């Protein structure tokens, strides 16, 4: 795979996410226009841990899709690690997703018949990493999140919490600039959810940038800043008091 322009060296300084005046208009069948984003501005510094909250229809899913380069804004500027991505072609966006972004989904979205190892190695394949190195790096990522003994399990043989861990390992294996999580604990019981959140804390403590969409205030309290979205714009930014409860070290290793 050749290095696309999107993969230019990341800026070490400046915000990792810089979105200005983002608009997104969906044209429905019959010509009805839905304005999901209406001039949204957002800047995220390297290493921040952010929760995005908002009522349904507020545009938070649209925002996450644009930030995740799954979709392009109708207008506005979006610089990811200093690179303008708003006007990129589909294949260029694919390359950006592969190199700069790690996704964690509510429904885990693993390939059910593939082993944990192959699920985690998948983004490395799309980057063009050689098979042997893919497997080594995937195994290392799984060991880091405590699934070193589940490498050859198929994902349909794993529990919900284990699946989400595999998904996290898959998001981390490419060493992305940002992690985007969409309700990552939404499908888990509260105890498992706590374990996963502890894992996010640990990832953040390593200095990674994490954005998490959630509708649970409790979950949002794990982060440093809560961005409230309403009617397609940022309504308010809320600083979260530093946590006093340390993350569970067992879950983080």
């Amino acid at each position, binding site marked *: 795979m050749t290095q696309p322009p999107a993969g230019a060296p990341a800026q070490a300084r400046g915000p990792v996410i810089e979105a200005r005046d983002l608009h997104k208009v969906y044209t429905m069948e019959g010509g009805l226009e839905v304005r999901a984003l209406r001039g949204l501005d957002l800047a995220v510094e390297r290493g921040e841990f952010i929760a995005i909250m908002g009522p349904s229809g507020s545009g938070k899913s649209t925002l996450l*899709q644009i930030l*995740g380069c*799954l*979709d392009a804004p109708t207008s506005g500027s979006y610089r990811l690690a200093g690179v303008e991505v708003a006007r990129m072609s*589909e*294949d260029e966006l*694919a*390359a950006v*997703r*592969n*190199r700069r972004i790690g*996704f964690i*989904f509510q429904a885990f*979205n693993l*390939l059910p*018949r*593939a082993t944990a190892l192959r699920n985690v190695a*998948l*983004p490395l*394949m*799309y*980057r*063009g990493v050689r*098979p042997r190195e893919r497997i080594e790096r995937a195994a290392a990522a799984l060991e880091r999140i405590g699934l070193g003994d589940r490498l050859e399990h198929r994902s349909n043989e794993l529990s919900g919490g284990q699946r989400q861990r595999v998904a996290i390992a*898959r998001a981390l294996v*490419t060493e992305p600039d940002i992690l985007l999580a969409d309700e990552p604990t939404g499908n888990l019981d509260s105890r498992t959810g706590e374990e996963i959140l502890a894992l996010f804390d640990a990832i953040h403590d390593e200095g990674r940038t994490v954005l998490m969409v959630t509708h649970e205030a409790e979950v949002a309290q794990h982060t440093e800043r809560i961005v409230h979205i309403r009617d397609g714009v940022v309504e308010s930014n809320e600083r979260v008091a530093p946590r006093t409860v340390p993350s569970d070290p067992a879950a983080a290793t």
Partner: protein
Amino acid sequence: MLFENVRSALEALAGNRLRSVLTLMGVMIGVFAVTTTISLGAIATAGITSQLQDFGNQALFITPNDDNPRSTRFTDADIDALARLPVSILRQRNIRGLARAGSEETQLTVNGVTANAPEVDRTIKLARGRYFSEEEDRRAAPVMVLSADAGEALFPDDPNPVGREVSVTVGSSRSFYTVIGIKEPLTGAFTFASNIAVDVPLQTLYLNHPSLARGEYPFLPVTVGLDRNIGDIEAQVDAILTRRRGADTFRIQTIQGALTLFDTITTILQAVLGGIGAISLLVGGIGILNIMLVSVTERTREIGLRKALGAKKGVILQQFMIEAVVLTLVGGLVGLGAAIGVLYLAVALVPFLDKVVLSPFTVLLGLFVSVATGVVFGVWPASRAANLSPIEALRYE
């Protein structure tokens, strides 16, 4: 990446085993039909050709032209004129009659031939006893050589009927013969029809059936040595008979002519079966198209996920193309295997096919056809998958 795509294709197909098997059936039948058709034609041609070589001679078969009212039977003078050529000509007449031996009886053909018959007709081989001599022919001796089938019919319990009596009744006249030989069963291409017949000396036949006009022959079997050019001989035979009898009063058939006819029949048969093969491939291909569209729809979320993880269009296209091609290739391989099995079976069962002829071209054609079917019918579903938008695909329930 390619390896990974092949592997995930195999897994996807294994995950829907029954569906995959049903789908590849069409391609399997198509490749089977195409391969069998081509090979069977080649095997039949090879078999017939080698049979004719076993025959040991080249042959002409001259008959009167039944469409021409002026055409008459051949005469001894005709034969004498042709005998100047380097050929052997058999004088032969035959009648149908009822043969009896003890309590057994059967309808059969009585061939009156000259004593040189075994030289002219190389298929005559004696199992027991001997053929009659020129001297026995000259004095019209009441002797008889049985075909293997005639021996079976008249003497079912006696493998060696040499010396036994057979009576032949034609109309109201009855004549008696002594068996002096029995032929071996015919092999290969000549075994299709049952051959209950006996050979007797030509003069004996004339003696016992005075109503047969002497010196008239309804057909002339002519054999030519392998070292001669059959085309030249045919031209000379034609010239001699035309001068003696007039144009269009006779027909010359050659085994080469029969072979050409056989070739034509084979070609037509191949075209028909090939057409059936092509239709099965088309139907099979549409089956592939259908199942691949279903597969793409079912796996919309998977495609969205792969795109979210950075798969470009081309990679997704490749993945689904490979899936289609793996499906058709497996179908093609099974079809080829079945075809080879049927060819061996055909060679084992059909007497005049002697060995399986399977050219690498045929095998490659079968494989090419199956891959091409996968490519042609897989490209549309695959490009649908490749063009899915990642968000739509991830949202799909």
